[in-house]
């Protein structure tokens, strides 16, 4: 077991690092250290304050290699972070490796359909780089300034995941000893990143949801998708989640959506708000019961993005209308959406048609408290009822209660992410919510066969974690990567 780094050791590491990669890339002034001391998900007193000994800003892969080699030599902890939220805590007295300065889009391959990016590339940067190339990337639920890789590695919700589980094709990884390797086809000299694995096992999987514990990612190839001649964002309204799921499954089974998401009414009303709407739309939402939308307001909206030749898109629209009716819903014409939910319509257009991410000002209501699970379609219907019932017990204090839900891998698994926004200062309520979430995960796993999207405690994962721990020990024998997080603790937000 490694003991916590001492001040003397930190000074030696800092000195060596400055010599190796340059002084301007290694910051250890007090203001930098305290502002990086609680970066996990905003400066939140609910999470421990862990002041690093230094923050390193690599500008090249070699800077990362040198940093890890020096840290490994001194058995000094390192946590790799990007911009926006991270899912694991940092390490007291360690190095925070902030890769924000590595933000180049290295390649856009429009033949195969992938982009090679550095870890600091944000969604905004990538979507801007893809403009005019005839390709688009996933639309996440992250803010535009959030990093593509940060979300991909945590397998966050993204558009186009209707057709697969993850956007990652290939990763370049640096191990604590300084070894660099690629997980996909670019491992072979002169070969591009078009193939995730083969002829050997899928190593990218080892780094997905590993939160930097198995190595530091320095480059990634991610899927991009052609912008077709015609496209639409079709919105259909339903009065029940079960009907929404049946609709989504039906469309997915018929290969219609490139992407589809179910939104509850609190979410579709508040997610795309402009600042001015916080004083007009939001008060009504805060005073409402999320289970009971006003008369005429659909409980769920399903956004379905599809594209192709114009004739194909026209046909898909007709099919959506017919299938929606089959499941007791109806397609909402764009004019109706603009009239009744103008912010919602504008938000969808901006996000799905222009790939420009909406700023989520509804987050100003409170501290995000989210509960996420995957389940099979039949089970997710029950889980939604269960989660809604449990969330309703907190009353309006956590409004808006926002959820979205969408299929991965052609609907083999469906995600439900439900969140409330309690007052950050109401620690008692937030503790109650955290305890409730634990209970809900247990119940959802046991009763409904749910799988949490974020780590919820290694004891639940049994031998899976034992195998991972063995791999971790082999790759990181000095346990310098994300040390305070154990392997995958502290994952739930």
């Amino acid at each position, binding site marked *: 077991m490694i003991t916590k780094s001492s001040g003397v050791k930190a000074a030696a590491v800092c000195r060596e690092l400055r010599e190796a990669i340059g002084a301007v890339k290694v*910051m250890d002034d007090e203001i930098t250290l305290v502002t990086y001391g609680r*970066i996990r998900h*905003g*400066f939140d007193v609910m999470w421990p304050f862990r002041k690093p000994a230094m923050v390193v800003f690599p500008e090249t892969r070699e800077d990362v290699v040198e940093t890890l080699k020096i840290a490994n030599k001194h058995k000094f902890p390192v946590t790799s972070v990007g*911009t926006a939220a991270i899912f694991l805590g940092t390490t007291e007295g360690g190095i925070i490796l902030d890769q924000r300065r590595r933000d180049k889009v290295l390649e856009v391959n429009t033949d195969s359909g992938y982009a090679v990016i550095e870890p600091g590339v944000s969604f*905004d*940067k990538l979507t801007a780089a893809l403009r005019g190339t005839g390709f688009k990337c996933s639309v996440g639920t992250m803010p535009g300034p959030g990093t593509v890789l940060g979300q991909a590695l945590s397998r966050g919700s993204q558009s186009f995941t209707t057709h697969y589980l993850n956007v990652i094709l290939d990763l370049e990884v640096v191990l604590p000893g300084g070894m660099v390797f690629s997980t996909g086809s670019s491992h072979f000299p002169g070969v591009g990143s078009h193939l995730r694995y083969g002829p050997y096992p899928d190593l990218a999987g080892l780094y997905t949801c590993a939160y930097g514990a198995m190595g530091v990612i320095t480059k990634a190839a991610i899927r991009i998708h052609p912008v077709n001649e015609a496209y639409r964002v079709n919105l259909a309204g339903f009065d029940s989640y079960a009907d929404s799921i049946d609709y989504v499954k039906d469309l997915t089974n018929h290969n219609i959506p490139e992407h589809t998401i179910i939104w509850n009414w609190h979410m579709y009303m508040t997610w795309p708000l402009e*600042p001015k709407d916080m004083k007009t739309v939001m008060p009504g939402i805060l005073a409402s019961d999320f289970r009971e939308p006003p008369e005429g307001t659909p409980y769920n909206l399903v956004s379905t993005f599809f594209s192709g030749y114009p004739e194909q898109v026209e046909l898909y629209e007709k099919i959506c209308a017919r299938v929606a009716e089959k499941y007791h819903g109806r397609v909402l014409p764009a004019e109706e959406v603009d009239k009744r939910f103008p912010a919602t319509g504008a938000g969808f257009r901006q996000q799905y048609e222009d790939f420009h991410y909406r700023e989520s000002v509804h987050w*100003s209501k409170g501290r995000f408290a989210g509960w996420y699970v995957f389940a099979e379609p039949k089970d997710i219907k029950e889980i939604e009822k269960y989660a809604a019932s449990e969330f309703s017990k907190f009353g309006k204090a956590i409004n808006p209660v926002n959820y979205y839900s969408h299929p991965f891998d052609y609907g083999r698994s469906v995600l439900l992410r439900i969140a409330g926004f309690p*007052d950050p200062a109401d620690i008692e309520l937030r503790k109650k919510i955290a305890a409730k979430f634990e209970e809900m995960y247990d119940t959802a796993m046991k009763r409904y066969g749910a799988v949490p999207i974020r780590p919820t405690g290694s004891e639940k994962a049994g031998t899976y974690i034992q195998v991972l721990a063995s791999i971790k020990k082999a790759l990181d024998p000095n346990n310098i990567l994300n040390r305070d997080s154990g392997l995958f603790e502290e994952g739930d937000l």
Partner: protein
Amino acid sequence: MKLTAKLDDVQAAAARCLRDGRCTYGSWPENRTLCPLYQHNPSFTFSGGGYLFLILALQDKKIDFGASVAEFAFSCAGCLACDANCNLIRCYQPYAGITDIIRLLRSEAVRRGLVPAGARKVQEQVKSRGHALELTGKVAKANSILFAGPETDGAAIKLLEKIGRPSARLAEKGYSLSTIYELGFWEELGPFVEAAWAKMKPLKDKDFIFVSPHLQDFIVNRFPELLPDYTPVNARHISQVLAGAFRDGRLKSKNTGNVKVSYHDPCYLGRGLKIYDAPRDVLAALEGVELVEMARNREDSFCCGAGVMGDYIPGLSEDTARERLKEFEATGAELLVTACARCREAFRRVMPARERQRVRDLTEFVEERTQ
């Protein structure tokens, strides 16, 4: 923001920061870096969010409020880029932008007697000039009041005479009101604001024409927060008046030779007052003048660095001006025109003496090129 606000009052708003860096860069799809601190040193710390987290760390007693915190607080250029791009913080009580929250941090430094040398020097200059507003000219006959400081008002007066607009002057010795607000000397500001308003109130039936964007922004955007009896005044920037005069033919251009110019949007005229078109309309109305834009322009303009008063990053103010001048040089323009005396001086300060006349004030430039 109330002048009596304390750091406690912004703690909850600061805690809303998602650390996503939206405060550092401009609009999609260019996403150009706009925050001078971040441009100089890309790090979460050196961003609007970094300031918010510092305030939270201070409140959480993770760091003492010492001289380095004060230097840091005064190192923000106050360019409003964070406010233009992050709406999350201002959507929560006290509904203040990040820049105002940083000013509150400065005011706390002032309250503790921790004023960096650069800021102290400016404050002493302001103090020596005094805060009083002096009304001159034939007020009864005037249909407008030129609200002007000493640096650029000469050209403005001549231009108003050219367009036959009778004006009196409400002269401020320096930019006292806005300067002491921006520097965080809030405890001494209240009486001066009230005195200024008392002078302005009887003149409310007239147009107030501003040369300084800082002063106009302060009066238009801050007086409503600071004065319980404030009612809006008809405030216009000199560039808007000139653009109108060109349109209706009261001001005529004379061709004194062809010249290619670039226009630097001052932060407070642009992001503060949202006046982007008028200066460009004025330049477009001048014969022989070709306007070429810098890569960062309008709401995505980059600051001149004049507002940096702290020394947490040595040379930040000058480096910021140089960064902007590089962008100007890339346009191939001969002259850089701006509409703020602070910007003009910030650029000239880092230029060789023989080059300084390449930076021109809009009113001076227009005065020279009109009949």
